[in-house]
């Protein structure tokens, strides 16, 4: 296919061109409006598209997504338990077009031609080549499955919402008393740190409410302990859902057999589970294969612009990026954080078009609510400010996002008010990103 480079060719060309790339604007196209192309219409990409249009005057924005709409992972565990409908978490792109003048192209991003500032997109009517001045990648996650014959159509992950969510919902609904629901927690970093624990809670709650006597939820965690909200989820596992949830830490997945719904981990083996909800380890979305990745499979970025080293006009936001931080804990991969990062990236791109340096007085945050039952929710909050970041000995190791606060709901705050707040928050972030 034309315009496609393998990684080595891409790096070589990009390196040769970098000396010329004083500004990212393509030569010969200076009389047209500046162009931003965005790959991925989740919380990161949609917010980026909207805010560049809001803040960028005549900047043209094209949003590329493989699907006709986005299905939110936020609230999707409540679709798994039948509490909400799929339509409640299905977010269209029509408002981005009508309210903000974003051009939306349904297709799959195939290849980046960095020296030529062009993206090739596979659409229903053939390949399209989109020229850009800035390219923003917000492709979410890809999976890194363990050995075996994992087939997500048999043993769903439901970690990208949509048909997978419906499949897991149907499998859960078919469970009987004394059946076992087995799920995994991927090795960090992964999308939505509290998400797997939330799922365990609402599945356990569902089984109890539906009178599935003796049914169990086995949580096989690849990490040494609960990675998010340890107090709230620890209490939920040990008290609220005691006797239903079995939590197994240090369970590295060694193999998966979807045909028999069996899983082997370093800590426990389960054969013939009724439901096997295998959520594999994760890495950056496929289109980032052209870019340098870190040891955990994500793209290191400059937190002032979300730009990629050596490619000043290619940016990566959301789950796929890796932001330098001070405590060696990854900046959380969440819809809320993707929205937060998108605004910083949008502002930096608009400033670049104006010949201005990026704003260094920036902060990012993530906040979320996690249902514990069908009436109660916990919450989690964390905040970062740009500045010096430190090593384990407190020595400055560079610039990045310094975590200034993190906290979860105290036990007394896991209540019905928080459950209602969850919907207020979800509707607000849905609107801020897609409307």
């Amino acid at each position, binding site marked *: 296919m034309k315009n496609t480079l393998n990684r080595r060719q891409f790096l070589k060309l990009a390196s040769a061109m970098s000396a010329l790339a004083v500004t990212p604007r393509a030569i010969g196209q200076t009389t047209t409006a500046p162009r931003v192309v965005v790959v991925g219409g989740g919380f990161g990409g949609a917010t980026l598209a909207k805010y560049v249009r809001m803040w960028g005057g005549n900047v043209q924005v094209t949003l590329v997504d493989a699907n006709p709409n986005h299905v939110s992972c936020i609230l999707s565990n409540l679709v798994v338990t039948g509490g909400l409908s799929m339509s409640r978490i299905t977010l269209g792109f029509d408002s981005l077009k009508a309210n903000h003048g974003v051009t939306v192209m349904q297709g799959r991003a195939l290849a980046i031609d960095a020296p030529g500032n062009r993206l090739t997109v596979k659409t229903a009517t053939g390949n399209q080549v989109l020229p850009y001045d800035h390219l923003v990648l917000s492709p979410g996650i890809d999976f890194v499955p363990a050995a075996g014959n994992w087939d997500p159509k048999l043993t769903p992950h439901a970690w990208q919402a949509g048909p997978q969510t419906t499949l897991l919902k149907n499998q859960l609904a078919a469970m009987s008393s004394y059946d076992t629901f087995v799920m995994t927690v991927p090795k960090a970093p992964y999308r939505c740190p509290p998400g797997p624990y939330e799922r365990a809670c609402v599945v356990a709650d569902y089984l109890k409410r539906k009178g599935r006597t003796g049914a169990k939820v086995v949580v096989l965690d690849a990490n040494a302990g609960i990675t998010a909200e340890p107090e709230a989820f620890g209490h939920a596992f040990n008290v609220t859902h005691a006797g239903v949830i079995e939590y197994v830490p240090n369970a590295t997945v060694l193999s998966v057999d979807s045909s028999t719904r069996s899983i082997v981990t370093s800590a426990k083996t389960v054969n013939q589970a009724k439901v096997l909800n295998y959520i594999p380890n994760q890495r950056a979305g496929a289109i980032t294969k052209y870019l340098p990745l870190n040891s955990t499979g994500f793209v290191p970025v400059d937190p002032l612009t979300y730009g990629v080293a050596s490619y000043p006009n290619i940016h990566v936001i959301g789950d796929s990026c890796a932001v330098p931080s001070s405590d060696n804990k990854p900046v959380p991969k969440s819809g809320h954080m993707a929205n937060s990062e998108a605004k*910083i990236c949008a502002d930096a791109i608009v400033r670049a078009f104006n010949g201005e340096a990026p704003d260094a007085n920036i902060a990012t*945050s993530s906040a979320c609510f996690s249902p514990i039952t069908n009436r109660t929710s916990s919450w989690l909050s964390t905040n970062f400010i740009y500045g010096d970041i430190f090593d384990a000995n407190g020595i400055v190791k560079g610039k990045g996002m310094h975590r200034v606060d993190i906290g979860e709901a105290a036990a007394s705050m896991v209540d019905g008010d928080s459950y209602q707040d969850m919907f207020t928050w979800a509707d*607000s972030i849905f609107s801020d990103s897609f409307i």
Partner: protein
Amino acid sequence: MDISLLSRATLAGAALLVAAMPASAEPGRLLASQCAQCHGTNGAGPGFEEIAGKDLFNDLIEMKYRPIEGIMDRQARGYTDEQLRLIADYLSTLPGNGGD
């Protein structure tokens, strides 16, 4: 290729562009946009309390320094006092919808 020529062409193009672009961002706009995930774009909902068109600096400082009562007390701890001032000043200039 003549790099200096290329650079001149690029800069000339950039100069043309500036006329078509909006003025520089107001201080506080980017920081305040981080409130919108829970309070709506430009602080005008949908979401929790409407924050557009109000001077919330004293409220934000109170939340930042009091014991944790809820999630907003944590979020307020995520900014310097100077950043909270910028956020409050910017939000106070926005029209909002007149909601609570």
